[in-house]
């Protein structure tokens, strides 16, 4: 088993909690004195930094939300003068302004360290040739992986996203061994490879480091089979640091959260109460080493659960389950909680369905309706109407079985549903 930083990654829990507590106390003191927003919030609650003595006091602290970052656009929550900031990133604002994050020189060093750990978790070494097909730019994916891969000492191909045929050509010619991108783009690359008639044997690809969007276990199998690689799931968000918050190891039994830098909590998204260990809820992070933009109890809107059992890989850091969905992409259809990933699993289970699908939710005569578009690939296609109708009914029946919702399934032509080279859009909710 390879580790990047064994003393920290395999630290005994007792010692880890002590380290977290020290770092938390220091972080709270810093934000109280340097960020007026946090100082006001704490004063409103009658809190002074001395009230926070260790991680057990964490629930006393207020939450931070994406909304709070927006309201303090662009630099309002930075905890250092701009002269100390050496990098700005921003996350796409689907509504209005983006959320802006800033990094000090030390933050970039920390981030590179965490991404080197992540890449090592996924099987990369200094001998790897890493093709970074995450987007470069304001998005943290590209540069985050890039700096980690350089820190690791691997050979980096900073190709960024897009131009898929060229990705495949360079993958072959440059002898790429590790591919880093979003899972939906990995699948798109696999399909393009098939279309181009590239023989898998011409590639040296061994590992995939995929993240930035939720994906199902079934999609992992599909990508692993098509590309003949081992694929791990990585997790991060720009507000916390970017990629490098958590990563699966090669055992693929949950993602290790790098707890020496981030303290996770699971809360009930409705009440804000901290949930008991193992329960599913909204993931919340407090950064304890970040300088530029420390966040206190940042609500990720991602739904997961935490597992403190020891991992066979030897890392002691807590593992979060694969993201089940988001509090904001969780659809409530006729009172049922529905995550797009559940429908994705159904489609792959039905067999050979390339998971290109779109969910359209609407409200007709005060009743929620769900329409599922599924692209008909050549494997699914039959020249008999009867068989296509059977397929349609089967998908509809499985959705009813699993979710208890009557969905209207529509078979659509290939490439009807928009392909993504970044994050994929799976849902159109017309009810809003």
């Amino acid at each position, binding site marked *: 088993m390879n580790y990047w930083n064994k003393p920290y990654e395999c630290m005994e829990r007792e010692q880890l909690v002590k380290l977290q507590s020290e770092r938390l106390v220091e972080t709270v003191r810093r934000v109280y004195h340097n960020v007026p927003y946090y100082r006001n919030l704490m004063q409103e609650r009658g809190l002074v930094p001395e009230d926070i003595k260790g991680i057990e006091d964490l629930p006393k602290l207020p939450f931070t939300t994406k909304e709070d970052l927006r309201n303090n656009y662009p630099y309002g929550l930075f905890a250092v003068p701009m002269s100390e900031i050496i990098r700005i990133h921003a996350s796409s604002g689907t509504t209005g302004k983006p959320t802006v994050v800033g990094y000090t020189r030390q933050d970039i060093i920390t981030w590179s360290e965490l991404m080197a750990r992540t890449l090592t978790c996924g099987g990369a070494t200094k001998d790897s040739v890493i093709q970074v097909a995450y987007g470069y730019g304001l998005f943290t994916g590209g540069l985050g992986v890039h700096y980690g891969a350089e820190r690791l000492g691997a050979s980096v191909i900073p190709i960024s996203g897009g131009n898929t045929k060229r990705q495949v050509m360079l993958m072959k010619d440059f002898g790429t061994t590790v591919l880093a991108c979003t899972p939906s783009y990995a699948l798109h690359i696999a399909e393009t490879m098939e279309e181009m008639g590239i023989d898998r044997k011409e590639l040296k690809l061994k590992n995939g480091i995929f993240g930035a969007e939720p994906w199902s276990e079934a999609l992992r199998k599909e990508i692993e089979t098509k590309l003949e690689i081992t694929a791990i799931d990585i997790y991060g968000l720009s507000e916390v640091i970017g990629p490098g918050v958590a990563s699966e190891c090669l055992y693929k039994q949950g993602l290790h959260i790098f707890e020496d830098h981030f303290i996770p909590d699971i809360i009930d998204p409705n009440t804000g109460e901290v949930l008991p260990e193992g329960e599913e809820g909204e993931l919340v992070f407090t950064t304890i080493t970040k300088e530029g933009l420390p966040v206190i109890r940042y609500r990720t809107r991602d739904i997961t659960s935490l597992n403190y059992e020891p991992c066979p890989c030897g890392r002691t850091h807590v593992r979060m389950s694969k993201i089940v969905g988001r509090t904001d992409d969780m659809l409530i259809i006729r009172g049922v909680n529905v995550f797009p990933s559940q429908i994705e699993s159904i489609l792959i289970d039905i067999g050979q369905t390339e998971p290109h699908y779109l969910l359209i939710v609407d409200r007709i005569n005060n009743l929620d309706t769900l329409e599922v578009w599924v692209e008909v*690939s*050549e494997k699914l296609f039959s*020249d*008999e*109407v009867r068989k296509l109708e059977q397929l349609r009914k089967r998908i509809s029946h499985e959705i009813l079985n699993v979710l208890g919702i009557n969905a209207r399934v529509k*078979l659509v*032509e*290939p490439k009807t549903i928009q392909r993504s080279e970044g994050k994929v859009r799976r849902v159109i909710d017309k009810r809003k």
Partner: protein
Amino acid sequence: MKGENRVLVRQISVFLENKKGRLLEVTKVLKEHDIDITALSIADTTSFGIVRMIVDKHEDAVEAMRKSGFTVSTTEVLAVKVSDRPGGLHEVLEVLKDNDISIEYAYSFVRQPSENALILFKVEDPLKTSDILKKAGFHTLKEEDIRNL
């Protein structure tokens, strides 16, 4: 196997959504590749359709359609010559029924006024069916025959 030696006729099937202009897109691709449609049948439901065609250059048609992003498949169908008179088709169907062969679908075409019409059948075992029909005195056509009609 080259088309010339086939007992059966290759049909290209194309998946189409039931919306305006899609069939036009199919004929446009075929026109651009100088492909002639010999026979055509469309099966449709309220939401999607399947276009089935016999064309003069099968491989070219499949490649062109795929490149244009359509989902296509190749199916082997049986082409049977039947007399163009009342009861002509009925006689063929009787033979099929007597031999317990069910038809997945069928469509007909007439190239020019003549004594015979052609019926295309999709059955589970087209080779066996072809033998049965030949023994019963019917004439089946090869891909080449159809091209030369």
